[in-house]
């Protein structure tokens, strides 16, 4: 059979039509579905054609109305017609066209299908009525593609069959008589036809039409089954590979940011996409307070414990986001936060091999160190002098204490001046020269770099009649903003599906991912005061004027360290440049996953699935510190006897190794039922059970005196105590082992019932047994279930003639999901310490969990009411979901009277109520032949209230920590003190509950004086969403994505507590109060040893900022090179694109602070700099 098609979106005749059709079917259908709108209104056709090829006429009708034509054979294509109409309907026009031709047509939705008049199915069936005995036939869809696996049976008999790979079936030796033949196929309208068997063979061909007006079978996946979208009652968000590929990233979550309403992705470490634990994301906000907050991730049918970085976004075919109870409750006690179901790409049956290739190169601007509120050199020197003058520096502690000491150049100078060891003139001279040094000059030059990333993908897919395969490989690498850091990733992916027989199908899938990370850089970590060894002061020079790298003494004064070195200690100086050069730190991870399955179709109505998945990941961290590194020297010195100079840690290198392994399996048995329950009803059900085990294990090892050339280490005495500069210490024992086993045994069931294709009902049920709550705890481990219904209003008679509505559904669901918390147990748990008792060197254990017999899983009840619609000839489609959620039995740390022996305990005592709205809209603004503009909007509203707390403390301390749940308030509510200005001594004042001004650090302020604080907002955005626009002009496509968050606040970090560590000082200190009168012009307090606690000042309303923002995330310009016109025969499609990422940000706060990356003086990540991404994509 030869088939021609055309629509305006599909080029003609540049490939043989069959191949085009087979290979591009999905794409074609997708495009057809998307491009049905007419720019000229409803079915007003004007034609004036004389002796015109019918094909041209169709093309003209298509342009005017958006109708798409399907036909077979060349005769219709070559037919010439005369037709003159003006503002005619489609029927009038077509009837005129066909009046002298042997064709009939049928309009299905926006598609026109033509058939030879005499070859209609009914005619054929009639023609063969007299032939007895044997029935053979073929089932195809409306464009002739065989439907494989369709169920065919003769009603009231045992005759049943499933179509083979050619869509064919046969029944032998059928007794003479009258029969009703029934054909069903998922996603297609049920076909029924009466036939009469007399004698001789009967051959009948059937054409099936997609159910409910949909051309393509769009399905959503729960991980257990694929549900046709039109039967789905729950809130599913569908993200296609097209959406993912449009966003250039090696990170899946970053690629799906803004793709569906309710999904909030917070992109972490923007310069690094190939590392683990990068992003966090949520679906419809938070439903828990202390338990797991991340959604469950399901990969090709099974939950995965692997980090998402192991999955190459280019391999993803689709992602279904399960948002409500009906969608997610099949996943039971792990579904409360929603589920992300990832389906990877598969080959296609009957498809020639197809190769696709893509490469992207990402150039990112230099890291903006200036974004951080770092005090400049002059400011830091002035601050240090004041701290020394006021006796706050040097800090009063032992010179060899393990706490960070502050022996910065600035404080040493000020101390010298104070003690009279240098003159005022010398001091001024030094300060003047240091003040000229730029805070980020050498830092930027020696420790940071402009990030660069690249990714290359190759995929081959194809299939025969009985098997289909997909193979892909990719390589990605990146240089993040820390100089000397490097990450890369290799993925290999293979999937196969083989139809062993008509009833038996075998599937196998595997992927391997190798991640390598080199962390030799220092990067931003030199800003963290906690990393006391390497904190840089702004005037510090890494390299001196002669190009020689400088030494820094952080442990003590340079003098003290030198004298120790002379006494036989190792050099105790730190040198940034050398430390980076000597570093040898790697993290390598290998992950693989194998999935196999067998599907046996026992009867057309009954299939059995058995599936097994095993996934493993091996993560090895290997940090080698050569004898030259500060790390090794510091360790040796720290365990050197002060008297005998015996080295507890031998002189030499140190090797720190650790392994973290995941070892999981999942076994599932499932029965799929699709029984015939009458003419108007359909029932699909699954029942199954599964076993799951996850094992997280790890070990760590420290080798002292390690020689990387000989591969030897030195035995160490872990028992003897050394009288070191840090006290009496034993050498830390580096061996650690962990092994955590979790097991689940679960049973589940799900059904969808459909009546007259107008009413759908669904339900699901699941019960989990798990070791997490103990086997004795049946009473609390209740089954989780959901119910849902859907009403297709468009199919009701009262809307049949409402032309502006193409589709209108109402959905409602109700049900329960669960959530778990692996950190607690109903039993008294003690943990042995990995180290020995420091006093008697014996092993010991600690109570980590008091006996807590009332523990149970958390439950989340969700009600979802929604509508889906397609309006105005598909110009506008979308959905609106409203949901109400109640989280019950939430675990919370409740304060326990310390008299009982511990201070807190987890208990199922909290409740939370949430609600929200998800809106998705897709539409065309303009659609002409050469120019199209379409938009998609996702808008989400989500909020919650803590409905019940337990042991809530009505204290200032409790209220001012936004993480603490407060009854009646949103989780994450910000309470702040009310700033009352500075007094005439420069001390920060606040108002107490009675409205009196008191010192901010007045410790007599009654902790229960809640009048002293006020509610100033929430920390998570109640409103968020995205706006995507696509402009197409001929071969150019411009795509823009804007994301936004609104309605929330953040507390701007300010001065920092210089009394605990002056290096934590922020730029705000430059504006501090210095003399009376300054209080009129500044809000930054003075340095006052009597009022040294700035906590309440920093938590005051002065620093609450509106966090709302709009971000221009992506602008992508794609040029589809017209390879056909250029006659580039070697390639089928070739797209080149350029993307600008993070080009603009509009913030509501006036400081230009990106609320996703709140700047602190010890920030570990910077906001993303602008990136430019070049990409090539080709299909062969």
């Amino acid at each position, binding site marked *: 059979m030869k088939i021609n098609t055309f629509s305006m979106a599909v080029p003609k005749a540049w490939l043989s039509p069959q191949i085009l059709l087979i290979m591009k079917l999905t794409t074609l259908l997708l495009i057809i579905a998307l491009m049905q709108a007419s720019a000229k209104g409803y079915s007003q056709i004007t034609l004036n054609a004389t002796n015109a090829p019918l094909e041209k006429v169709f093309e003209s009708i298509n342009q005017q109305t958006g109708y798409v034509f399907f036909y077979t054979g060349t005769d219709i294509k070559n037919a010439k017609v005369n037709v003159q109409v003006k503002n005619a309907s489609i029927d009038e026009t077509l009837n005129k066209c066909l009046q002298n031709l042997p064709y009939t047509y049928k309009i299905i939705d926006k598609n026109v299908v033509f058939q030879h008049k005499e070859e209609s199915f009914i005619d054929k069936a009639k023609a063969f009525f007299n032939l007895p005995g044997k029935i053979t036939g073929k089932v195809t869809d409306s464009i002739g593609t065989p439907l494989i696996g369709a169920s065919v049976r003769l009603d009231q008999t045992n005759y049943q069959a499933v179509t083979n790979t050619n869509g064919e079936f046969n029944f032998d030796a059928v007794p003479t008589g009258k029969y009703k033949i029934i054909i069903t196929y998922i996603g297609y309208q049920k076909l029924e036809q009466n036939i009469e068997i007399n004698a001789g063979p009967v051959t009948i061909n059937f054409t099936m039409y997609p159910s409910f007006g949909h051309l393509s079978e769009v399905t959503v996946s729960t991980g257990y089954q694929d549900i046709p979208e039109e039967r789905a009652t729950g809130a599913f968000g569908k993200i296609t590979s097209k959406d993912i590929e449009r966003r250039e990233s090696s990170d899946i979550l970053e690629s799906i940011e803004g793709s569906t309403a309710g999904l909030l992705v917070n992109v972490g470490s923007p310069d690094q996409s190939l590392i683990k634990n990068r992003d966090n994301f949520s679906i419809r906000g938070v439903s828990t307070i202390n338990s797991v907050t991340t959604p469950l991730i399901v990969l090709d049918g099974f939950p995965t414990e692997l980090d998402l970085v192991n999955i190459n976004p280019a391999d993803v075919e689709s992602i279904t986001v399960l948002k409500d109870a009906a969608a997610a409750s099949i996943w039971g006690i792990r579904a409360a936060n929603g589920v992300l179901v990832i389906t990877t790409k598969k080959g296609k049956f009957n498809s020639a091999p197809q190769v696709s290739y893509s490469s992207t190169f990402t150039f990112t601007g230099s890291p903006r160190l200036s974004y951080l509120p770092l005090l400049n050199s002059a400011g830091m020197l002035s601050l240090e002098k004041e701290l020394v003058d006021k006796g706050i520096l040097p800090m009063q502690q032992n010179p060899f204490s393990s706490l960070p000491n502050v022996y910065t150049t600035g404080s040493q100078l000020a101390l010298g001046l104070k003690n009279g060891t240098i003159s005022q003139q010398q001091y001024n001279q030094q300060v003047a020269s240091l003040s000229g040094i730029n805070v980020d000059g050498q830092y930027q030059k020696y420790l940071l770099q402009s990030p660069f990333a690249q990714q290359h993908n190759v995929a081959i897919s194809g299939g025969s009649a009985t098997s289909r395969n997909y193979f892909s490989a990719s390589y990605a690498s990146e240089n993040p903003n820390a100089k000397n850091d490097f990450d890369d990733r290799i993925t290999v992916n293979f999937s196969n599906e083989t139809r062993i027989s008509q009833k038996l199908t075998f599937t196998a899938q595997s992927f391997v991912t190798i991640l390598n990370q080199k962390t030799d850089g220092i990067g931003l970590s030199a800003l963290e005061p906690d990393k006391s060894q390497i904190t840089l002061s702004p005037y510090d020079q890494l390299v001196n004027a002669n190009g020689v790298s400088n030494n820094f003494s952080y442990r003590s004064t340079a003098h003290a360290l030198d004298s120790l070195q002379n006494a036989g200690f190792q050099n105790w100086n730190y040198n940034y440049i050398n430390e980076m050069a000597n570093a040898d730190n790697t993290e390598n991870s290998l992950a693989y996953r194998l999935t196999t399955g067998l599907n046996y179709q026992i009867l057309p109505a009954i299939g059995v699935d058995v599936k097994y998945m095993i996934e493993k990941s091996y993560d090895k961290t290997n940090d080698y510190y050569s004898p030259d590194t500060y790390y090794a020297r510091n360790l040796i010195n720290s365990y050197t006897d002060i008297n005998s100079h015996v080295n507890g840690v031998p002189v030499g290198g140190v090797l720190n190794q650790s392994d973290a392994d995941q070892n999981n399996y999942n076994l599932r048995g499932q029965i799929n039922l699709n029984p015939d329950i009458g003419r108007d009803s359909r029932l699909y059900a699954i029942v199954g*059970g599964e076993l799951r085990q996850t094992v997280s294990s790890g070990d760590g090892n420290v080798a002292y005196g390690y020689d990387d050339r000989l591969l030897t280490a030195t035995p160490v005495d872990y028992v003897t105590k050394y009288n070191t500069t840090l006290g009496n210490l034993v050498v830390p024992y580096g061996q650690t082992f962990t092994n955590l086993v979790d097991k689940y045994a679960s049973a589940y069931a799900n059904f969808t019932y459909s009546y007259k294709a107008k009413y759908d009902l669904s339900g699901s049920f699941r019960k989990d047994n798990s070791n997490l709550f103990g086997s004795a705890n049946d009473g609390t481990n209740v089954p989780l279930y959901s119910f849902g219904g859907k009403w297709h209003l468009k199919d009701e008679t009262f809307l049949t003639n409402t032309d502006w509505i193409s589709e209108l559904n109402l959905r409602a669901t109700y049900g329960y999901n669960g959530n778990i918390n692996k950190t607690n147990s109903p039993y*008294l748990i003690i943990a*042995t310490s990995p180290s020995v008792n*420091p006093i008697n060197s014996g092993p010991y254990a600690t109570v980590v969990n*008091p006996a807590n017999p009332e523990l149970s899983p958390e439950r989340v009840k969700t009600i979802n009411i929604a509508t889906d619609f397609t309006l105005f000839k598909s110009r506008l489609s979308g959905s609106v979901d409203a949901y109400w959620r109640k989280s019950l039995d939430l675990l919370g740390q409740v304060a*326990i*009277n*310390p008299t009982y022996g511990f201070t807190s305990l987890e208990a199922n005592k909290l409740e939370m109520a949430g609600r929200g709205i998800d809106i998705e809209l897709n539409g065309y603004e303009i659609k002409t032949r050469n120019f199209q503009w379409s938009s998609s909007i996702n808008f989400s509203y989500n909020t919650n209230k803590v409905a019940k707390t337990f042991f809530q403390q009505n204290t200032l301390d409790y209220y001012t920590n936004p993480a603490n749940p407060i009854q009646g308030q949103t989780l994450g509510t910000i309470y702040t003190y009310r700033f009352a200005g500075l007094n005439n001594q420069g001390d920060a004042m606040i108002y107490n509950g009675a409205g009196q001004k008191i010192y901010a650090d007045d410790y007599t302020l009654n902790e229960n004086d809640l009048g002293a604080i006020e509610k100033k907002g929430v920390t998570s955005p109640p409103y968020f969403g995205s706006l995507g626009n696509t402009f197409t002009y001929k071969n150019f496509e411009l795509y823009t994505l804007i994301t936004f968050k609104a309605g929330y606040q953040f507390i701007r970090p300010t001065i920092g507590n210089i009394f605990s560590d002056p290096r934590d000082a922020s730029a705000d200190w430059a504006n501090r109060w210095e003399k009376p009168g300054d209080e009129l012009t500044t809000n930054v307090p003075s340095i006052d040893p009597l009022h040294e606690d700035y906590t309440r000042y920093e938590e005051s309303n002065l620093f609450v900022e509106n966090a709302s923002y709009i971000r221009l995330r992506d602008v992508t310009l794609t040029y589809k090179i017209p390879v056909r016109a250029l006659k580039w025969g070697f390639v089928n499609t070739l797209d080149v694109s350029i993307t600008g990422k993070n080009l603009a940000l509009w913030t509501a706060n006036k400081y230009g602070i990106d609320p996703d990356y709140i700047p602190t003086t010890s920030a570990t990540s910077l906001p993303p700099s602008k990136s430019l991404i070049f990409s090539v994509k080709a299909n062969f």
Partner: protein
Amino acid sequence: MYNPKYFLLLLWFAIFSFVSCKKYVEVKPEGQITPTTVNDYQLLLNNSTVFNVSSGTTDFVTDDIALIDTGLISSIQPVSLLNIYEFKELFYQTSENDPDWNAFYQQIYTANIAIQGLPSATSGAPGQAQKLIAEAKVHRAYAYLCLVNQYAAVYNASNVDKAPGVPLLLVPTYTQSLQRASEATIYNQILSDLNTSLAALPNLPVNNTDPSKTAVYALLARTYLYMGDYANALKNADLALSLQSTLLSLNSELSNVPPGFFYPVFYFPLSQDNPETILLKAADNQDAPLNLSSELLNLLGPNDLRTYFFTYNGPDLGYYPGTYYAYSPYESRNQGPTVSEMMLIEAECLARSQQGQQGLAVVNVLRQNRFKPSDYTPLTAANDQAALVLILQERRRELFAKGFRLFDLKRYNTDPTLAKTITHPLNGAQLTLAPGSNRYVYPIATNVISANPEITQNPR
């Protein structure tokens, strides 16, 4: 030919037999365990962070401390130490934890776990479970002895049945009442725990973190001393000394210190290695700088080797000139019983029973180990009362900064000849604490009382 229905049925049973099989999900945790064996409890009892800890704040009430360094006053951490020094009405903010109270009750809770669980624990050596129960009881007795002295009025035989002690918890649950038991009940529990644990314990421990018979006698001696039962205190101090009596000569320790080294305590054995230690109970705030009063420094005198080893000069570390501090941040400031404490109890009890000269003789043995031979002079007294005063002075010298002083002052205040008003300088002002003042007794932290109002607050 098979019937598909049977296959289906089989599969169905296969699935649900393993699902209902609870055995599958029963996983024995590794690393983190529910204690079942004797050894599990042994591990729990060897947690020095829990058991070998004692209050580190009580010296701040006493005349041993004088905060004259203004820099220190402004930076003292935690602020509650300053509240204690200032005899404030409350020491801790509403939601602030009282580290002493919490540490002692954590000891009691963990000891109760062991006492409750050990009788049914499996696979221990013969007698090991009994020994561990005894250890737990000694730790529990120590915690209650500290609590009742810190948070209740001084022992007064005429009122001890009525005077509120502290909540008495003997099982590890978090639902029982926290009503304060009477002081008599607490003291009876202490004596009963000590007496019933005696039999199962060895004379001397392997590590001085573990209780032994010596520790039991020593704690009995201390308990009876605080109860004013000097005969029993003397008897038990002697029993303790009969098992352990080695004294460390500070003079011989002197040779370890390099000449001119400003931090001699570096070269002094830590409490856990000191042969004088009977049971180690370290101060829970070892880092707190204890700014010693000139009164104490004068009492010690410059030639006392305890001055040399256990005090250091402030300016060496950037402190205010003229300040002296106790010990080093590394030394645990052991508050558990030691040989010298037993000798001092022996001496005090002798002096209080009209054997002042014998008491002085005991103290002089101690003093010989605390001075260079050239600096040593024996103490002499004309009568028992004078001997007692000298012995109590020696007690103050020997045990300073180790948490004894507050409990001693409370005892002395009941005797008009020994009662004393405490004066604390603070930024030019003088704060005073009169003998017998309610403020000698620690207030109970607000967060303890607010959660369980049945706990009554001490009068202030």
